[in-house]
Structure formats: C-alpha cells, structure tokens
C-alpha cells in the first residue's frame, strides 16, 4: 500500500495550479481532501506523477447562503456542511446527506469539490447535487464555465471536466418543500448499497414538483426525471409511489458486487426510494 513516487506541489493560487496542469497534462492531478485519491494511489490504481495539493490556494472554502442562492466552495469539507447552520436551514438535505457519508474522520478531510469531481458512482454528493439541480463552476486556462450537475457525469470516473480544469464551486437555488436523503449501507463508512435523494413540494394533498436522484445504482448517479414526473399531480397514493419506483427502476442499471446481486439491489432501490419519498412528503 505504497504509492509510486510522485512530485508534490502546493501552489498558493489558482494561476499556479493551472500552469502546473498545463505543463504536465495527463500526468498531473489536483488533490483536495485526498480521501479518494490517496487510497487509489496507494493501491497503485491511480498513477499520479505530479500531485497538486489545493489546500493553500484559497478562495474555495466559503459557504454563502443568500437571496440569490447558495454557493459552496469546492474545498468546503463534508464536516463544514454539517456544521453550517444557515446552510442547514436553507437546504437541510445537504446536512442529512453529509451525515451519511463515510465517518467523522473522513468528513473532516473530504471536500464537496472532491466528492463531486471524483466521478466514483459510490460518492453520495453527485446524486444529491443532481437532485438539487446544482451547477458546477469549472476554471481552466481559457477562463471559467458552468456545467449543470445533471449533465456532468458520463461514466465511472469520466466527467465533463477537462483534465486541465479545476472545479471551484457548486451553486444551487435554495430548495423548497420536503426533502430526504435515504441510504442503505453495510456499516458506517460504507458506500451505498442504494441511496435516494428526494426534494418534493406540495399544495394541499397534491404534489407540485418532485426531484429524484439515485446513488451507486449505475456507473453514474441517476437523475430520474420520469420518477419525479410520476409523482407530480398525484396525492402520493400507492399507485403514484409504485409508478415512481417503476420509472426509477427503468433508469438504473446496477451491477453485482459484494453488497449483493442485481435483483437485491433493484429491490432495495425501490424500497429506499419509497421511504425517501414518504419522508420527504411528510416534511413538505
């Protein structure tokens, strides 16, 4: 469990990061909290001859909650998210989800940027951000651009980010209505067997909007537009829940692993989604 030799850099600003990325191309990677990247390097599954630590760059550790929405710097840790009261008031699903990621030690190090940029289907925040229709800001040599979370993920570890771009922030409109992040895992610190992020609004007994995303049930997070649509206009009766579940099952494509075979995962995905919807509805 010892990584291959690498050069370590700790630039003081974004310009320094970008010039290193430009210089070394494919051979360079940025590191945020390091809690996904370093294990991969130790297993020699990731070969990173030039490692660029983002810790000293600055300007990416703020959380702002305002009338124009929420902006979370890429270097904000999962623990920062849990501790931020204004954020928890504006988007409580973020705290609920962050509390189900890894364990406290990992959460002190693991960042939002690293979690969403990583591209590991097991990460919880990509699906969460898709549910919230967040936008990722990427900065590269040619300036900055915004990519919706729902368009960001292409395949496992493949995203819309170019090798020479850095993800600097996640922005989203403050969600309204009820929410739930429901996750089944084998133990604390484990990635999801199945997880569902749900935001829902209602007027009286009628559902007016629903956003649903699933985690670790395909090689990317799955934003299931059809599942949300199946709920809108209904009173969330059993038929609507069944329809949403069926729609979601049409969108996911889990594979067998140590957590269990496909049939089990599909069943649990349905159960987890149902529970998430019910909890979100009760809070809406």
């Amino acid at each position, binding site marked *: *469990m*010892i990584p*291959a*030799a690498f050069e370590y850099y700790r630039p003081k600003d974004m310009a320094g990061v970008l010039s290193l990325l430009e210089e070394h191309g494919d051979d360079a990677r940025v590191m945020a909290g390091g809690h996904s990247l370093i294990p991969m390097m130790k297993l*020699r599954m990731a070969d990173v001859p030039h490692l660029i630590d983002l810790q000293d760059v600055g300007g990416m550790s703020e959380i702002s909650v305002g009338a124009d929405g929420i902006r979370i710097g890429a270097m904000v840790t999962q623990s920062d998210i849990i501790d931020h009261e204004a954020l928890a008031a504006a988007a409580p699903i973020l705290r609920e989800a962050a509390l189900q990621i890894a*364990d406290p030690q990992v959460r002190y190090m693991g960042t939002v940027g690293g979690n969403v940029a990583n591209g590991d289907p097991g990460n919880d925040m990509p699906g969460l951000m898709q549910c919230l229709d967040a936008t990722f800001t990427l900065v590269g040599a040619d300036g900055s651009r915004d990519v919706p979370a729902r368009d960001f993920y292409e395949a496992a570890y493949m995203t819309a980010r170019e090798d020479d771009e850095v993800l600097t922030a996640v922005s989203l409109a403050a969600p309204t209505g009820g929410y739930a992040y429901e996750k*089944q895992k*084998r*133990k*604390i*610190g*484990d*990635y999801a*067997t199945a997880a569902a992020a749900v935001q829902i609004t209602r007027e009286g007994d009628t559902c007016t909007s629903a956003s649903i995303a699933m985690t670790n049930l395909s090689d990317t997070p799955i934003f299931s537009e059809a599942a949300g649509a199946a709920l809108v206009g209904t009173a969330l009766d059993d038929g609507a829940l069944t329809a949403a579940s069926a729609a979601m099952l049409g969108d996911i494509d889990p594979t067998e692993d*140590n*957590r*269990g*075979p496909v*049939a*089990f995962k599909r*069943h*649990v995905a349905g*159960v*987890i989604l149902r529970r998430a919807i019910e909890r979100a509805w009760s809070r809406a």
Partner: protein
Amino acid sequence: MKDEITREERVDNLKGMGCSRKRVEDARFTQGKGNYVDDLKLDGMLFGDFVRTPYAHARIVSINTEEALKVPGVLAVLTAADLEPLGLHWMPTLAGDKQMVLADGKVLFQGQEVAFVVAEDRFAAADGIELVEVEYEELPVIVDPFEALQSDVVLREDLVAEDGSIPDGAHGPRKHPNHIFTWEAGDKEPTEQVINEAEVVAEESMYYHRTHPCPLETCGCVASMDKVNGKLTLWGTFQAPHAIRTVVSLISGIEEHNIRVISPDIGGGFGNKVGAYPGYVCSVVASIVTGKPVKWIEDRMDNLMTTAFARDYHMTGKIAATKEGKITGLQCHVTADHGGFDACADPTKFPAGFMNICTGSYDIPTAFLEVDGVYTNKAPGGVSYRCSFRVTEAVYFIERMIEVLAIKLNMDAAELRRINFIRKEQFPYTAALGWEYDSGDYHTAWDKALKAVDYDGLRAEQAQRVEAFKAGKTRKLMGIGLSFFTEIVGAGPVKNCDILGLGMFDSCEIRIHPTGSAIARLGTISQGQGHATTFAQILASEIGLPADSITIEEGDTDTAPYGLGTYGSRSTPVAGAATAMAGRKIRAKAQMIAAYLLEVHDNDVEFDVDRFVVKGAPEQFKTMKEIAFAAYNQAIPGIEPGLEAVSYYDPPNMTYPFGAYVCVMDIDVDTGVPEIRRFYALDDCGTRINPMIIEGQVHGGLTEALAVALGQEIAYDDMGNCKTGTLMDFFLPTAWEVPNYETDFTVTPSPHHPIGAKGVGESPHVGGVPCFSNAVQDAFRPFGNTHTNMPHDHWRIWKTANDLGLHG
C-alpha cells in the same frame, strides 16, 4: 503489635483476585506509547517485502529480477532458488505438512509469496516489487473442496509419488491427491444404528464460511543476525515466542541458545499470530545474507489475503431423538477446506482441533464425527479465531442442530435444550466423543438467563409480531436467538496435547525482591488480554504482596521460562495455574521463615492475607514484606537465602467454561437489515479474577461474533481471486454497529485448577456466533425456514425472505 487497618482493608490493598483492578497496560496504550514491532528502529535496518502472485494456481515459468535490482535502494531479491541451498525454500507447518516459503515452481493461492525484495526502506522495496517480472502459466483453479476431491487437477504434486500413488499424510491415509486426512471420533456403527432406529431424526447441512481474525496490528518481524557473536534476535508478533524459537532453531540449524525471540506489545492476535509465516524465514535469511537487521511488516491486504484464515467448514449433521425430545444420537461429517497447504494450528493429535466437542452441553449417549481435510487454491491457515481449536465450529454446529431438531419436533428450543442438558450431578462428565467435562451447572445458568430476558414475554411478543406481519401492519420480524455453549480450553495435558512435539504445559517464575516487591515471568504473551494486570492479581492473593508491587513480564525467550504461548484461552487455565503453584512455593518457604522469625514451629503459623500469624495469636505475625527482607538479609539455619520459585504446570485436564446467551433482533424484511435490540450474555468461567477484564473480554468477543455472523467473510470468485481483501469489504464492526451488551455470570469453579479459573477470552465468540445466527434464523422460523448459511449480511437475509415468498 496493633494493626492500624482492618483485615478487609488489608485484602483491598492487595488488589488480588476478584478485584476490578484497572488495567496497568492502559496507561501506555491509551497514550500511544505502546511498543509494537513496527515501532522498532535499529541502526542500518533494511526492509523486506513480497512479490505476490495475482493467480490462484499457476506454474512459474521464470522470474526476472534485473530491473528491480536497478531501483535505487534495492539490495537483493530472494527467490526459492536462493533459499534452496539452505533448505529453506519450504518450511514445516504446525499441522505436519510443509509449506513453500517462496514459490517453488508453482503457486497455489492468490497472494502467495513469490520473491522477497530487500531494500533500504519500504518505499524502495515497494518500487522494486513492481519491477520483478514473473512469467506465469495459469493452471485450472479449484476453490470448492468437493470439486477438489473429484478433480483430476492435482494441487500438490509434491505429495504424489512418482508411480502416481498417494503416500500417507501426517494424519494417516489419503484417498485423493487433494485429500489431506480423514479424522474420526466416536463410534460409527452404534451411532448409525441409533439414527436408523430413532423416532425422530433431523438433518441439516451448513457451511461455516471462511473468515479471518483480522487483528488491528498485522503480522511482522525484525530479524537481526549478529555475525560477531553468532546470535540471532527475532522480534515479532508471535503468540507463542518459545515455540517460534524452537522452530527457528530446528529449521535453521542455529542452536537454540543463540536465538532470542522477543514478542513486544502485540495489537491483537485471535489466532492469526500463532503460526510461522514466510516473512519470518525470509527476514532471517535476509539478515544473515546482508548482516543487517531486516524488518518485514504486512499491510492490511497481505494480512487478510494470505495469513491464517479461520473456519471454512462444510458440516452435515444428523440428530436423533425421542418424540419427547430426548436426544439419543448425533452424527457429524465435515469437509474442511484447508487451502493450498495444511497450516492449521492444532495440537498434533487433533487435525480437526477439538471439533469433537460438538455434542455441546447435552447428554448425548452416542455420537460419531468424521472430518475430511482438503486442499484447494485458497490461502492456508485454519486457525482458531478467538476460540479454542475449532470449538466455534463445533458449537455452531450443535447449536444449529438443536434448533433444527426443535423445528422438527415443533418444540420450543429453550425447552429442548433444558431437557437435554448434562445435569449438575453428572460432572465430571465423559462425553460420547471422549472429553471429560470438569464441572458445570447448566440448568441454573439457563434459568437465570431466560428469566433475565423474560423469555416467555419475548415469545409472546414475537407471536404478536408475526400476526401483525401477516396482517400487513409491519414489515419487521422479530428473532430470538438462543445459545448455550460449552467451551473446551486450556490446552493442555501434555499426555495428549502437543504442537510439533512441544508439550502444551506452561510456566511461571517468580522473584521476590528484598523490599517486598516482585517480578514474575511467564511463558505466555498478552495481545491485549491484560496479563500484566490479572496475573499480578493471582499472585497478590497467593503471596500476600500488593498487585501494584508485582511486575509481570512475558515475551522475551532469554528471560521468560519456556511456555507454549497465548491462544485457545489457555493462559489463565495453564499459565495462571503455574502462577498460583509458583506462588504457593514462595508461600511455603515464607512460612518456614516466618516460623523462625516468630520462634515457633512451622506448623504453628498460618497464612492470613498478607502475613503469617501465629495460630491462635493473630497479634503475633510477620508480614510478607518483612519475610521477604529476612529471606535475603538474615542468616536462617537450614534455609537458603533468597525467595524465588518456578513452576511448570501440566494441567490434568482441560477446563470447560460455559454460558447462556440470548439475542433479540428486529429484521427489516424488505432491505435485509437486522437491528439488534438486546443482547444478554451470561458467562461461567469459574473463579473470576478481574470482573472488569472479563466484561471487556466478553464485549470484544461478542463484537467479533457479531462480525462473523452478520457479514465478515473471506470470499473468493471462481478464479480464486479474493473478493474481500480490504476493510471496505471485509466487515469489521465499529462502535456504531455494536449493540449494548448486558453481561451476567454464575460461578462454577474448575475442580482441578488451583484457583478454579477456567478462562473466558473466547467464550463470547464461541457462544456469540450461533446466538446472532439463531436470532436471524428464528425470525423466519414461523414462515418455514429451517436453516440458512452465514454470514447474514443484508442481501442474504433479504434472499431468505425472498425465498420464503415474503416480498409478495
């Protein structure tokens, strides 16, 4: 003379037996000041590590070390060809087999050691490993022992004669090239007859999956050969340092007095650190070759994938009974998967350990056990993971068979146990498979346990839950797990217990210092059990000096008396007895000194807590402190100066701790997630030396039991790839997954042990696994479940529900 303090206070001051004395080890462990083998840094120390095969079964075509040797800092790369001239390319296993130190022509399991890279530091070694080029020719892989016994693929060509015949193994005839041994206990024909004629017979097949002890600290060592004085010092994570010394001497030819083995602090063993590993041999050779100390430390994946596993028993049973539930006979067959080499750590005469304790706590008149050991393309091992030799398997087997029989009889499983328990007055009790149980009072323990949890109330609640489930009002089922176990620990009497010919006695040597403090050294070695705390307590009560004034030292073969180490809950039963006996020798001499000082006859003084008093005149006394001083500094006619003693204790019998456990579990039928609502554990370990340490041992053992029952496994795919080589997938529970444990006890001393103690370290694991498993199985009993295999992780529980049609 007038006493300032009462007798009670004098007793308290000793902190002797029965006192919840705080662990003296914890001051250093809780401050990160422990001294583990990887903390050791010696001048010029090198680091060695292995090239390991990615294939489970392959021939080695070639090994090219050229590029590796070019890595700055890499000094040498050892292969089997380098070890062969020394006769060290193979080594004996504890089970009478032999094992490759480095791949000799072929590999037999994924992760097997192929070459040893020696470098200036571990980073250079890691880079060197990447550059050793090994060409493999893949061979068909066998991961299933039943297939192995049918297959034409020979795993161990070295064990087949040139004419194709199969020579006997260490445990007798072998019936197939991949077969290791058949071992039998009990009477075959009478048992078959009982079963054929029985009113009721229940049958079940069960697989006790392969798992791993996974101590927090992995295995490792530092070997240092001093070429000037010819002495080899070997520090390592050894659960049996003296045995390691003898084995190293036998295989290396270095005289035993020139070898010093030191076990420093050990971060858990649980059986994983009993055997000898290629890393030890390669480090020694590398140190001899380079003249420098060489360190080898496993990483977590090495540890999980290649060092000794546990279990992997396929068990088939038949249990016969009358219609009323009185058990009349038991039959058990085991197909034991031992992996590529037979490296089990069992006493020589017991290739399946004490599996023949599988009649459990029940008065079963007739029984028969047969075990077949088999080679497969998996890692070797087969150690006792927190249990005495294969006792966990035995107890799991019988505690499942009882449940299966209860289902067949449509009887309550608690009642079925009660009517079959060995009765108090039957002890000492000779079981059908040969063991003589020393003492027990099972009915009392059982009744106490069932009362404590309100068993009848639980069953009523469970029945209501089933109704509610059937009515669609809940999706959670409730399981009540029962287990009553009898352990067999304290190996063992030299007449039938040895490992590699080394008798399984143990020892203690005591020196009292003139000012009334002491040091005691033992042949055992703590790995977290708290020996420095408890052995001082035994001595305090025996010799009347405060436990706080007694240092306990273990693990250095140059100073400690010879002993067989710590595993199988043997330290208290064997070395604890030696400690008491040595203490009594001290006391006997002290008595003579006291009598001299008090100017009375030897028989006119008697021991009282911390002193000898004149019989009938307790105001006339000499404290042990005073006696110690006199022993060294006063000329006493007819008595040698000094106050020392040594005892080598060969136990007359094993000890038989027992216990009654109950687990209450709620199971989410839709997700397969179990939630442990309650866990009650009553342990009877005989005399209780330190209740707090016992409680700690019970908590730890139950947690490992929970792990094994609910998810912890070493799993392979068809190609022999280990699927659970990291802690991401190998289930190691944390505080989060662990319920609150309720502990309780009864006390039935061992009649043959000097202080009546039986050992407790492993009981909670042995009894806990079937208890957790039975809880899962019991939840599904009302829906037709008789047995499902562990580990009961989410998907397997879900599958049980699914197979029973509970998902609609």
